[in-house]
């Protein structure tokens, strides 16, 4: 996917002016967090499960080569194939080749963020293969030619009438009199269309929430059941996943599933949890003839062992987005690439480069709510700060800001000078602002006063007053 992360500020400005987006984000903020809180409260061992889930992934990341190798052996043993891809180009090619070998004209897809990462839809279309999204949200944004704006709710930025408009624009045979105001009506309309497509598809392309090393299985979690049809009806099933999705055992997968749905939607478990192992066997009732796993690195192995190592524990539950004040203000598209919110702000610079994603680690108040809800206990604020450290070290942060910081930090280490400079400034501002108690505008304070008044300093600084009141004491 083409990035617009560099224009984060402009994107955010645009998003803040979009009234329907604001409404949609308000709905999100009132829904998901409360449901997560209730789900967590209903399970006394929720926090222990989070620890266990974290430990599982830590162990995997320390032994990633071993588990990936084991996974591949098991996939082969069950009759499937694994395609190792270093980057988006290799992954696109691998998928295209499989599709071409199968003579595919239509590919049904269930939700996959990695699919977005490698922009697989555009690539297939460029080669005359029609990709059909089968997740309702993904289907809607495909109609609108938009990227997803949320990890688990890709069309969360839209209102119901925007969805209805998209359907009417594309389902041209739709009776104009047919009401499309209820979610149910929209769902029925999408289902009717998708049913035909399911039956016609040659290849089914799914993501994978987890890869299980001991069995060579993939795990897919949905609430719509569309992934089951995507992987069982077509002749060929391709599962697209990044390397850090691996877990050692079925038992481990079960532990992570228990925190995943609760963190994401507040459900105890998602409606459909599908385990797929290899292609159809002789005595299976259904299933594909071929089973492929396309394994993508795309910059992740470079994060191993770095200060961003722990980001690879992420299970894409979306809880950090749902609880983030910045995401809640601007939504997902403003971040400019596939991933948004706190997890995106940490991950994206690692995947597309810090210069392109320069705003993302800075556009955070470091309020820490993301970390407090992350089921994998990923220290997101700490890692945002690490990106800022890199920017500072490589002089990617604005020169003027760096110079100001230098001067300020020098003063902070020289108290007498600090007091002379700031003490004087404060006394001046205090006398200037006393009458109103605040400033509507001050030179060099535009960032502050563009949206809020600046309360005036109360009086002379505390330390000057203290010294005057306690002339004898020196501590």
């Amino acid at each position: 996917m083409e990035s617009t992360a560099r224009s984060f500020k402009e994107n955010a400005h645009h998003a803040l002016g979009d009234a329907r987006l604001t409404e949609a984000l308000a709905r999100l903020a009132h829904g998901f967090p409360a449901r997560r809180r209730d789900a967590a409260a209903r399970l006394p061992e929720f926090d222990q499960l989070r620890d266990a889930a974290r430990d599982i992934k830590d162990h995997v990341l320390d032994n990633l080569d071993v588990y990936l190798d084991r996974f591949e052996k098991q996939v082969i043993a069950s009759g499937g194939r694994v395609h190792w891809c270093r980057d988006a180009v290799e992954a696109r090619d691998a998928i295209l080749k499989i599709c071409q070998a199968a003579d595919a004209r239509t590919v049904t897809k269930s939700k996959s963020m990695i699919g977005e990462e490698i922009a697989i839809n555009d690539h297939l279309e460029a080669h005359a293969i029609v990709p059909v999204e089968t997740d309702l949200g993904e289907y809607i944004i495909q109609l609108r030619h938009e990227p997803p704006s949320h990890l688990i709710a890709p069309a969360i930025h839209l209102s119901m009438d925007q969805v209805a408009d998209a359907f009417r624009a594309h389902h041209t045979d739709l009776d104009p009199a047919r009401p499309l105001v209820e979610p149910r009506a929209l769902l029925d309309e999408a289902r009717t269309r998708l049913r035909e497509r399911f039956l016609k598809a040659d290849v089914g392309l799914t993501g994978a929430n987890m890869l299980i090393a001991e069995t060579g299985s993939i795990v897919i979690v949905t609430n719509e059941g569309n992934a089951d049809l995507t992987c069982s009806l077509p002749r060929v099933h391709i599962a697209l996943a990044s390397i850090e999705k691996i877990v050692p055992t079925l038992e481990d997968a079960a532990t992570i599933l228990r925190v995943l749905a609760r963190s994401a939607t507040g459900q105890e478990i998602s409606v459909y949890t599908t385990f797929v192992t290899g292609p159809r066997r002789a005595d299976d009732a259904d299933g594909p003839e071929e089973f492929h796993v396309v394994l993508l690195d795309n910059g992740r192995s470079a994060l191993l062992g770095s200060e961003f190592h722990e980001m690879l524990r992420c299970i894409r539950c979306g809880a950090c987005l749902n609880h983030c004040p910045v995401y809640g203000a601007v939504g997902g598209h403003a971040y400019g690439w596939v991933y948004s919110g706190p997890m995106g702000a940490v991950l994206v610079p690692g995947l597309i480069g810090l210069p392109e994603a320069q705003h993302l680690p800075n556009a955070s108040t470091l309020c820490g709510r993301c970390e407090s809800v992350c089921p994998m206990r990923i220290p997101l604020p700490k890692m945002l700060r690490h990106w800022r450290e890199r920017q500072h070290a490589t002089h990617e942060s604005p020169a003027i800001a760096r110079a100001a910081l230098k001067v300020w930090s020098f003063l902070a280490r020289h108290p007498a000078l600090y007091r002379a400079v700031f003490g004087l400034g404060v006394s001046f501002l205090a006398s200037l602002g006393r009458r109103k108690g605040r400033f509507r505008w001050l030179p060099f304070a535009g960032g502050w006063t563009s949206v809020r008044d600046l309360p005036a300093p109360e009086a002379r600084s505390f330390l000057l007053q203290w010294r005057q009141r306690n002339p004898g004491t020196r501590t």
Partner: protein
Amino acid sequence: MASPSETAKPSPHVALFVTCLVDLMRPSVGFAAIKLLEQAGCRVSVPEAQTCCGQPAYNSGAKADAQAIAKAVMKTFAGFDYIVAPSGSCAGMLRLHYPEMFAGDAAMEAEARAFAPRVYELTSFLVDVLGWKDVGTTHAGSATYHDSCSSLRELGVKAQPRRLLAEVAGLDLRESKEAETCCGFGGLFCVKYPEISERIVDKKVDDALATGAGTLLAGDLGCLLNIAGRLKRRGSPMKVRHVAEVLAGSEGAPIGEDSSVR
């Protein structure tokens, strides 16, 4: 949670870390903190070499500068039983981030780890360490309390200020729905991304106003300046104060309001 790991001595010697914002913008909070600490039986000193905890540098990625400031702070505040700040954000910096920022430098890390447990946010020190609650002041009116992110999530400060405010005669404390949500200050964030900050603080302000309370209280001046600034810009009469002012009964003009007529 700031745990009472040690039982306080009868008259602990406390150093007030006044914090740069209180020092420069709201000195009365510093005096209120001293009054409260003394009422609670502490001997209070104010080391004069103090300036700032280094957070602006640390959160801007200027780690070396932050480390240099941290070293100076630890030197200035050596030798006290406790270091108390009327701010969760600055206390959190000293307590959690100092040890973290020296990771890899064994000697400094050890020093920061030894320093950290003596640092407390004001209300948590009064309640958790001293077990003090003889507030004895009066404040006629209603107020709502905003939990600053660092106080709440870094230091587990939630019940302590409410516990103390419950002792203030005449005060009607009203919980808001989103008390735990960020106000959009975020240090330099609020000037780097003013439009986003504005949207976040607007939600905070709406949430506070929905309680119908006359005053908003919090324990961190960063949040308070941001919230007060936005309230005033919106022309709202809601008053804004640091919690220590109400607890100490030392109330001058509210933040951002005319201090000449009183």
